[in-house]
């Protein structure tokens, strides 16, 4: 099935199988920064933005993005939209293996757009759909809290 979407700012047309998931489509397109972790919509490793909202790339079909705007970690890196979050994650060592990291960054970015100065508990709650097996989460919470404070001028 032919689809056309705006992928990281570029119009892309593709011929995809109706059954292909969005994460599989993105990875097959060379955007391997988005990962497949559980394929049940639980772990958040496949998080991408569709129409400005963070969605699970494993629960959405590629065909559903026809006519949509899709952004991945590669696009958000290119646009520098999350450069401060990436820097804070680096400074705080808020990643180890890095497999969950793209999803964490996108989810954190969405949280800070909704709530510029969340409490630590708010951050923990919002990230609870993104699993990390390496860090124990604390450094991720620290990094996001740092960026919230920086962006709010505190």
């Amino acid at each position: 099935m032919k689809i056309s979407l705006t992928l990281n700012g570029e119009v892309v047309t593709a011929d995809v199988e109706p059954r292909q998931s969005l994460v599989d489509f993105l990875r097959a397109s060379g955007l391997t920064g988005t990962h497949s972790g559980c394929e049940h919509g639980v772990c958040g490793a496949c998080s991408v933005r569709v129409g400005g909202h963070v969605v699970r790339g494993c629960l959405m079909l590629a065909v559903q993005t026809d006519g949509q705007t899709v952004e991945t970690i590669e696009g958000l890196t290119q646009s520098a939209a999350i450069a401060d979050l990436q820097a804070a994650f680096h400074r705080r060592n808020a990643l180890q293996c890095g497999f969950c990291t793209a999803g964490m960054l996108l989810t954190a970015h969405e949280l800070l757009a909704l709530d510029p100065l969340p409490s630590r508990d708010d951050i923990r709650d919002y990230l609870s759909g993104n699993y990390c097996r390496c860090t124990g989460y604390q450094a991720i919470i620290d990094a996001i809290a740092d960026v919230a404070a920086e962006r709010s001028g505190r």
Partner: protein
Amino acid sequence: MTQGDPQVGRSIPRPNARRLLQGKGRFVADKTLPRMLHVAFVRSPYAHARILDVDLSAARAMPGVVAAYDGADIAAHVTPFVGILTHMTAMQSPPQPALACGVTHWQGEAVAMIVAQSRALAEDAAAVVVVDYEPLPAVCDMEAALDPASPLIHPDLGTNLCWERRIDSGDVDGAFAGAAHLVERRFVFGRHTGVTLEPRVCLFDYDGSEDRLTLHYSGQVPHMMQAVLAKHLGLPESHVRVIAEDVGGSFGIKIHTYGDEIATAVAAMLLRRPVQFAADRYESFLSDIHARDHRVSARAAIDANGKLLAVEIDDITGIGPYSVYPRSSAIEGNQVLNLTGAPYLIPAYRGRLRVVFQTKVPTCQYRGVGHPIAMAVMEGLMDDLAAASGRDPADLRAINLIPDDAYPVKSPQGILFADLSHQASLARLLDLMDYQALRAEQAAFRARGIHRGIGLASMVEITNPSPMFYGVGGAPVAAQDGATARLDASGAIHISNSVTEQGQGTETILAQIAADALGVDPSRITVTTGDTATVPYGGGTWASRGAGIGGEAMLRASLALKEQITGIAGAILQCDPTQLDLADGTVVDAAGQTRISLQALAQMVYYRGNELPPGLPTELIATRHFRVEGMPFVFSNGAMASYVEIDPDTGMIKLLGHWVVEDVGTILNPQLVDEQIRGGVVQGLGGALFEECHYDAEGQLLNATLADYLVPMAGEMPDITIAHIVTPTRTSVLGAKGAGEAGTTGAPGAVLNAVNDALRPFGAQISQMPMTPERILRAMGTIE
């Protein structure tokens, strides 16, 4: 002296984390090779069944299918593997085929494989493979498996017992007979698994023109895998290259030999095309090794002064149908036997271990390996003894912990401890958490009907293992690791090491060590790990050995390169090399004055050697290896505390706080050490509170998805406060012990005691992990 602040001891962020943050990771599943094919497996729906027929004809006719194989097809090209270690006397486990042949022994064992142009097409074809099974009785319960009436999983062995070991040291019976207080308890530790967020994945690329096999590997032990593949595929070891780039979590899951991965290698060799196997999460639950699954009966006694008299344990553990190759599945139970009571002075000890086959997923070494069980058992007994004798749990520990000036100390199990700090660690912990204030707060809340509990745990962790771990038992597992340091013409330093990176920061600390020895900024250093073609031979990363062993090799190689550089500089400058040092990328004299830059020196050596004195040694590369000698293991130690609140109506546990004091010897990078500990604590809490592989009586895994198997989430975890005691190990110059498994080792015992401390007013006690709300309510008698 080197100018500037030392790099070792600083919290330098990991340079290699930047690309992971930008979505530029290099995970195996990200790699596409020309003509690459994909694999899907047909896995047994039965825990135990005879395979009467495998019909692949329909599958072979499916679109995009290139090949289809059953167990016999694969077995013709690979020898079976046997997961026993020869130093574990009388251990037995049958040969394991890559794919099941004749009989399948667990639900999820691979029975047939499809190779196709895409994973989706391979799955389509796998769905039409017809396997005719004759179900055999499942043997699930580890105790029932030892009943003489139980069906045998491997009839040729005549028993379902894999291995048994006993220790009897000192007058245990006399000690118990004369004890002032004796406690007994039976503990149950559920079966859980590692859940690396990146499922297992491998990509084999076979070049028939040169008979060379390359494995793009998501794992921790490249050289071990090189040896395993060569041996079982009949290739010279030199024709096998293993390359590990980014690894999406491993935790011990990725140090084992998996039949489905070996079968993928066979397919790549038969088809002479690259073949990738990327497990999905369902396959991970059904084929990644599981861990724990122990039942421990234990008792301990103290005298009237609170001094420990004796400890006795009986551990039975179910390991699935095979001991896993090549490290064996008896190690975890052996650690339980060896380490129960390790922090304490214990005059008498008796232990019995039985390792039992069952028709479930094989278990093997996962982060902590037996330690969480050994520590939780002993710490649970210590709290029982404190309660029985009316002592504060902290006081009872202080009475019995090995004094910090007593080392070396040999435990009744014969384990040698040195350079530990249990007493200082406990004292620091009580100060860090403000123990007395927390006890007062707990009492105040209890008066208001809010049930909080405080749990303590003292612990040891095996790190930096010597050859006495695996090599002595015949496994192709190096205990010695190597490092190379070289100076290039540009003045850049390139280092490589046989320990590997899985995100813990290995490459960063190696660069810090080399930077100090060579007087350069870490940013001038390029690091290579994980490629058997380019790094020195060594064991890789397991048993918390990367920093202590790989780091020491790095230090020695860097110092050797430094000696080469100063030797050449002495000839150029016509001065005594021993009066020269390296700082800020230059050679400096005794007064600290810059004499020549590393770049100028290297360019003279490489480009204009004619300017150097004839015969001058001009090597600018050094390799050194290191292994631990004189001690079987270098232990680290620590103390932990957990603070929880129980809702007696729902059985829900809220984690309020967690404190860790850890002695990892020399701290190379404080942030990386602390993050290893935090991540480990959370994995330990996962096993203690949430994670369990639920099986029914037929051996069906009931929760093989991440929607059903619970792992810790951000919202449930507490902030974790960490402090350190520093007692460097004297087995190395660097003095670093391991830190990777400490958190997982201590956290379960601490939270177990905290939960039971909260339950004490109800007269309830829980001794089973994970401590689910249902089990809490059952312990309280709220539900039956």
